[in-house]
């Protein structure tokens, strides 16, 4: 029986500094049966040229898209519409997969064919790639109900392609909460389980998201949960509200020239 193919979507948008490390982490996988679906989302920093170079070097890399900036929702949904694999996942253009990420997740899911999706642990790293320790989101126990208040299905996620398509895949209209919205829909139709192994390195970039984008993300996530409550018939039995705390921060500037 042939080993299953894994389709990995990567939105390519202004991550030139980090994109080679992300794509190299695919090349370094101990599981070679993958295709990389890079979606050119209109970068202006040379990221597209990097993606073109990888596609020329290895036929498993494919660069899709029209080069216009359409946002992450359209990038993810369009890239995975072209998937030919048995499983689908997402690697962000500034993150890194551990070398055994695909083999571990495929093995975990093949042993549990009832699962629609599984997710692993992740570690965090700074902009220079220095490790910052184990992430925190996955520590909350998963349940379809708990997913309404905590997005613990994070990271690395791998979904069965037929389940991904059965629940409608990423909804491009959900913009920056497309992944949360998708996971909520997946949780309503299929079992989801956690593989307690760190398979993904998530890069913390302090200035990567403007306050406007962060607020857009907060609103979009809340909208995704409101939609989930409607789908689940819970709007008459439950009240959803949003807690928010905004802090103005003043941090002493680092001394010039760096520390000894």
């Amino acid at each position, binding site marked *: 029986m042939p080993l299953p193919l894994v389709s990995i979507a990567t939105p390519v948008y202004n991550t030139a500094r980090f994109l080679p490390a992300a794509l190299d982490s695919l090349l370094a996988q101990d599981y070679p049966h993958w295709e990389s679906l890079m979606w050119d989302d209109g970068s202006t920093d040379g990221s597209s040229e990097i993606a073109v170079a990888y596609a020329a070097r290895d036929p498993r890399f494919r660069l899709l898209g029209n080069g216009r900036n359409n946002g992450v929702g359209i990038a993810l949904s369009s890239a995975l519409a072209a998937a030919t694999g048995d499983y689908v996942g997402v690697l962000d253009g500034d993150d890194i997969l551990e070398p055994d990420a695909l083999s571990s997740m495929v093995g975990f899911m093949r042993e549990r064919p009832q699962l629609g999706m599984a997710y692993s642990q992740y570690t965090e790293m700074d902009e220079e790639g220095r490790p910052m320790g184990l992430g925190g989101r996955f520590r909350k126990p998963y349940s379809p109900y708990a997913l309404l208040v905590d997005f613990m299905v994070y990271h690395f996620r791998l979904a069965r392609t037929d389940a991904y398509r059965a629940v409608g895949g990423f909804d491009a209209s959900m913009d920056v909460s497309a992944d949360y919205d998708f996971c909520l829909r997946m949780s309503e139709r299929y079992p989801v389980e956690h593989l307690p192994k760190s398979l993904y390195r998530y890069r913390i970039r302090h200035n990567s998201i403007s306050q406007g984008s962060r607020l857009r993300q*907060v609103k979009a996530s809340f909208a995704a949960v409101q939609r989930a409550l409607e789908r689940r018939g819970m709007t*008459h039995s439950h009240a959803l509200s949003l*807690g*928010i705390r905004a802090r*103005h*921060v003043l941090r*002493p*500037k680092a001394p010039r020239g760096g520390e000894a």
Partner: protein
Amino acid sequence: MSAAVTVLVPARGEAAFLAIALASLRLQTFVEWQAVVVAVGEAARAAAQAAIGDDSRMRIMDVGEGTELEALARAAQDVRSEFACVLDGDDALEPDALAQLHAMLAAHPAAGMAYGRHVLVDAGGRMLGLGPLCELPYSRDGLLLDFMTGPLRLFRTAAFRDAGGYDIGTADAADYDLCLRLSEARDIVHAPRVVYRRRIHPQAPEVARWSEGIEARYRAFVAAVKRRGLDAKYDIALEIDSWHILQPLKPFGGAGKLR
């Protein structure tokens, strides 16, 4: 001749709330006040006329075209009293509110503004609790991080004007921006008494325009940091935490099935 305190009352058209606001003004133990109701739109004007009745201490300002903030800024420019404050048409004063704040300014001649504590109430007037920031100690620098000076503030009119009054370019954060500017020129004093009832309802700005408020207050913070020359020493940022709260409507039976 103007009364000692001019109370500006922005009114949005919720007649029941405005009637409560003006009734709370009539109950003040401090009696040297006059009120100007800043009514934007026909509904607000009709509600104001009904709530004022024949009370000669209150009048409606003809605001013409423009936003609520533009109208309020114009009304503030016309104040001739020694002191001024804003009573939102959705809110209410405690009976000794003006007396408390007036006494604070009388005791602190160098202060340009006094403010007190407040409680939050819902649309039906039910108490929700103490205002979230009003017990924080005031300092000029602390105001950069937390907007603790409000929502009821009594200004010396001269200090209000010296600080530049309301800036109509700071919609959604006009009060915060004004307090920051005033804090840079004058002392601000705090009366440790509950003087105000702030009404939280779906149309209240902190509910209906919460994200615009966060962004606008951050812009006011950034502007203040630059005015104060702190940007040479400090990096500035806005950190946002959010969480979803899901509560069964009937916690002890009949709630949705938990999976």
